[in-house]
């Protein structure tokens, strides 16, 4: 042992810098981040880490160094099966490796590990070539990452399974003259996402064991929720999506309809003809928790 044991914090900062180093533990030992805490060379490593009868100190440290990235890349593979299928295992691992360096975990739970993955992919994407024709496949990959991360959040978050969701028929109980003032309260798990590709179909095909080809670009308005503890997704048309967006933004139904009429080219009569069916579908899908009129829960 050393004559005076080093401080615990010093040893921990050093070991963390060594095992998290992307070039491996030798690179880690030589890094400034590690040497700031313990100035030891690879040749003198036994001053910090003892050897065993069968392994030298570097080999022993490598158990932790190898496991750090391997374990966390494995977690990301599990969470992003569709993205991995789209780019292949090797490329995925490369992105995951880069991500873990840019956004190392600050959380006690692995559920937070990928929180910034799609953002990282966007930050590091090469600039789109305006002269290049054809789909922007990088955008497809970023969309996939965002979708799969959303699936994780919706799966783990609060859902409607306890029964506190708006039931079909409850909307009919609102007097017609008060409809315009009614506000639908979304379930916390409801997500509205716009994509440039039908990423949901690709992700589902992969999760079902298929081998899908990347889809052609297509404006995709996705509503994501949860029912019976399974994440559900539904592609909807633009007008329905804008109506849902207005409701999620907290607008009363009258104001939401007005916004949709201003934002889209739909006619009032056409919207009125569809909206009743939408409400039934949304209630069956358990998108909403309650309906309030004038601040009072009437569901």
């Amino acid at each position, binding site marked *: *042992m*050393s004559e005076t*044991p*080093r*401080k*615990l*914090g010093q*040893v*921990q*900062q050093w070991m*963390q810098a060594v*095992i*998290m180093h992307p070039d491996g533990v030798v690179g880690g030992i030589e890094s400034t981040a590690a040497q700031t805490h313990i100035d030891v060379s690879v040749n003198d490593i*036994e*001053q*910090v*880490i*003892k050897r*065993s*009868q*069968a*392994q030298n*100190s570097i*080999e*022993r*440290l490598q*158990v*932790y160094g*190898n*496991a*750090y990235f*391997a*374990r*966390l890349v*494995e*977690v990301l593979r*599990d*969470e992003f099966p569709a993205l991995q299928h789209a780019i292949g295992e090797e490329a995925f691992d490369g992105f995951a490796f880069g991500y873990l360096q840019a956004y*190392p*975990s*600050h*959380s*006690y*739970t*692995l*559920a937070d*590990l990928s929180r910034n993955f799609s953002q990282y992919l966007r930050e590091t994407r090469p600039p789109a070539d305006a002269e290049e024709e054809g789909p922007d496949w990088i955008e497809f990959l970023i969309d996939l990452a965002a979708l799969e991360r959303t699936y*994780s959040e919706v*799966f*783990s*978050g*609060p*859902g409607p*399974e306890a029964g506190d969701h708006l039931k079909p028929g409850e909307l009919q109980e609102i007097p017609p003259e008060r409809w315009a003032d009614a506000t639908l309260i979304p379930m916390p798990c409801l997500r509205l996402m716009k994509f440039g590709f039908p990423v949901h179909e690709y992700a*589902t095909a992969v999760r079902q064991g298929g081998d899908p080809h990347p889809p052609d670009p297509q404006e995709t308005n996705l509503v994501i929720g949860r029912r019976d*503890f*399974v*994440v*559900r*997704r539904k592609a909807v048309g633009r007008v329905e999506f804008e109506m849902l967006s207005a409701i999620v933004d907290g607008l009363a139904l009258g104001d939401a309809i007005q916004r949709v009429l201003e934002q889209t080219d739909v006619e009032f009569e056409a919207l009125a003809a569809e909206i009743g069916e939408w409400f039934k579908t949304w209630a069956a899908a358990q998108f909403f928790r309650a309906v309030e009129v004038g601040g009072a829960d009437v569901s």
Partner: protein
Amino acid sequence: MLEPRLGHPNIGLGLGLRTVHYQHILQHEPKVDWFEIISENYMDTEGRPRYVLEQIAERYPIVMHGVSMSIGSTDPLDFDYLQKLKRLAATVGALWISDHICWTGVASLNAHDLLPLPYNEATLKHTIDRVRIVQDVLERTLVLENPSSYVTFADSTMPESEFVNRLAAETDCGLLLDVNNVYVSSVNHDFDPVEYLESVPHKNVVQFHLAGHTNLGTHCIDTHDGHVIDPVWELYRLAHRLTGGVSTLLEWDAKIPEFPVVHAEVLKAKPFIGAETESAADVAETVTDSEQKPDEAATTTVPHPAAYVVAEAE
């Protein structure tokens, strides 16, 4: 004078609850004495894992086993984490809460690994102080597990067994004696596992862990991906004799086989503790896959201290 197991009951032979076995457990209600959960997989979720846990907790005793307390870290304790832990324990009626003698990160980072401590006086004092705080917050005895480890520090001034002994003596914490970890670390650090088992404070031992590991020739890795090997079963026999018998839990966290295979593995403990052999019902459930072997070629050599719960989506 301490009561055996610090007053905790010996609840028999249990299994680590894993998502791939949810359906089997709910459908068949297998004759398992108790289940241990990975605390972090249930603390924040409001999805299926939590729903299933609450159903299982109505039918089986539950013990909570964490991987993120980081009791030995020099970072501040995470009191939000501790409060979540406490709330979950109250909700599922957890008999006890355990974690590891380790640290998982520093400077606000988390390596999601069970990293070893240098065993010396300063580390011991630091850990004692934190165990006392945690026990005050949780308002219960904390149970701590000896980790598998792969390095030893020049800054250590005492063997792990002495560190464990003195930590337990100062804090009255419980010990989760992982017999497989004792074996793994004894290979990796060239110590005698029997001496280790003989030296730990037996009345503080609340629980045993058993698991499979991977032997790479020069060292062992705690992979939790296969059967318990015979030398570990022999150490378990000794540990049982020394402690008078405590609750025993089998962990299987990678390449997890069908539930009956895992169940059969923990039932192998019975002859080592002088218990009755399996009932006819146990045998009927376990016979199907009991010869299944892990795929050696596919063995991963990454320790698996934490599991990630994959989302179910259409």
